[in-house]
């Protein structure tokens, strides 16, 4: 996915000269092509994430569309106040590109596990979260963000080459996209699964082990502004099971539950999210995904 990002960014920068790529001394083997092609559009801020977001906001104020490329926690936790005060509050076109969603960097330990980023970013009123499920959604998301500069957070899988959509889907903030609907009877269509981000690959195989026919939806673009529209999607179903590579606290299932708080919506929301027991555990992706709370018995 990260290579798709650079590929799309190179394509866009040949047309839009105001694109700037900023890194915190990360992106070895990934950002090189961009740097070679557009040396004047590339800056290494050094290992100084808080200041880097300040530079990004200053550049964006001056008419640049800034993409800040880094690893999940370094561009969220480390510089959250700069994202809040400098980018979000001033509504500046800065796109945070966070690589290593969920447990991508499983063996590197808790410092590198991206399990709380949704919780932080979704409290920023002007931020759009882009969390693509597969490589096709990744292209849709990147193109959407390039064409709609705004405070935004692109959460990318490190290595996923997964392709579930036949073509590049049309996406819109807050809108659920149908991924799978195996000609199942109407009754089952009322109990659906929903994911956001690259966990979709794991989710599909995990559900398939239990159920052969099911409906699966993906939510690639979301954020605080779009919570109010979720009622319209949720109300169509009896139950929605949300699978996410994030803690339940502050995650997308909580976000959906909040969206129908104080409403008369009867839809039941189930959450399959990462247990906090994972803190301090290391291992590869498959091993660590055992900490995903199972909801299908």
């Amino acid at each position, binding site marked *: 996915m990260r290579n798709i990002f650079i590929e799309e960014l190179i394509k866009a920068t040949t047309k839009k000269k105001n694109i700037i790529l900023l890194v915190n001394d990360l992106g070895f083997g990934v950002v090189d092509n961009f740097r070679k092609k557009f040396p004047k559009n590339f*800056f290494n801020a050094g290992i100084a994430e*808080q200041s880097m977001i*300040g*530079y990004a906001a*200053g*550049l964006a*104020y001056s008419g640049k569309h800034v993409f800040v490329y880094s690893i999940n926690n370094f561009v969220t936790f480390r510089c959250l*106040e*700069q994202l809040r*005060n400098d980018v979000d509050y001033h509504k500046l076109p800065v796109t945070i590109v966070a690589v290593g969603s969920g447990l991508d960097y499983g063996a590197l330990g808790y410092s590198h596990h991206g399990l709380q980023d949704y919780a932080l970013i979704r409290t920023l009123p002007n931020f759009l979260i882009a969390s693509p499920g597969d490589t096709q959604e990744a292209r849709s998301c990147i193109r959407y963000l390039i064409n709609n500069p705004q405070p935004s957070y692109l959460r990318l899988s490190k290595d996923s080459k997964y392709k579930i959509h036949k073509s590049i889907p049309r996406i819109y903030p807050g809108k659920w996209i149908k991924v799978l609907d195996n000609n199942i009877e109407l009754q089952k269509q009322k109990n659906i699964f929903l994911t956001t981000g690259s966990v979709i690959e794991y989710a599909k195989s995990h559900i398939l082990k239990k159920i052969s026919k099911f409906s699966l939806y993906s939510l690639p673009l979301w954020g605080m502004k779009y919570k109010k529209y979720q009622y319209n999607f949720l109300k169509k179903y009896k139950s929605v099971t949300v699978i996410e590579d994030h803690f339940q606290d502050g995650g997308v299932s909580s976000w959906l539950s909040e969206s129908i708080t104080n409403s008369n919506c009867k839809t039941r929301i189930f959450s399959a999210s990462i247990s906090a027991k994972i803190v301090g555990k290391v291992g590869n992706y498959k091993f660590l995904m055992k900490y995903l709370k199972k909801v299908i018995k």
Partner: protein
Amino acid sequence: MEKYKKISKDIRKKILELSYASKSSHIGSSLSIVDILLVLYDNFIYKKNIFILSKGHACLALYCVLNKFGYINTKTLDSFGKNNSKLMLHASHKVPGVVFSSGSLGHGIPLATGVALAQKINKTNNKIYVLISDGELNEGTTWESLLFASFHKLDNLIIIIDYNKIQSIDYSKNILKLEPLSRKFISFGCDVTKIDGHNFFNIYNSLKKLINKTNKKPKIVIANTIKGKGIKFMENKIIWHYKSPNFEELTRAKKMIK
């Protein structure tokens, strides 16, 4: 320069009145930057030159200066700190003439660095001024940004330090070792000038000299100032970082300005 004497007195009176009316803190911080802001706005902030107040808690001084130069009217200025006013007690970009909101320290230099870098990319001659407190020299982002600005030769970035030597709850020298300041900045690759932040001639001449220097170094102006300047009983007193004057203190202070 004579005209500044009168205007600065008017501004100090207004700061006292509005601080009293809004019962707001940070009067000492506002009084220490009045003279710098006055010279800056009268001579250097024009066309696309940009000013950022990083020490956003001293916004009352900035708002009074913006009022003097026609950015905001007196009715707006008088709404300072009132319910639903645009003029909150920290600098706000919702106010005409204010580019960035501030309030949390250590944000102004990184923002100014980004703007200065953009000017270099666009090959403009615009200058970026940022005024920080000496307390902000405690922040890591200040030094990180200097490394970046120096590496990228941002000589269009002018950082003015309001060196009033009092931070929040104590004198700077009792908190961290800031000195030797000049040598620190020089070792970071900056051009350093020391000025008397209450001497109009000195402020003007130093800034004028600086902006014509193209030595590819970010510019640091260490402005020696007095916290609470102009009101004898407020000068160099830690309490005036927090306290707003009561009616008796307001009357006494206004008499001192005459």
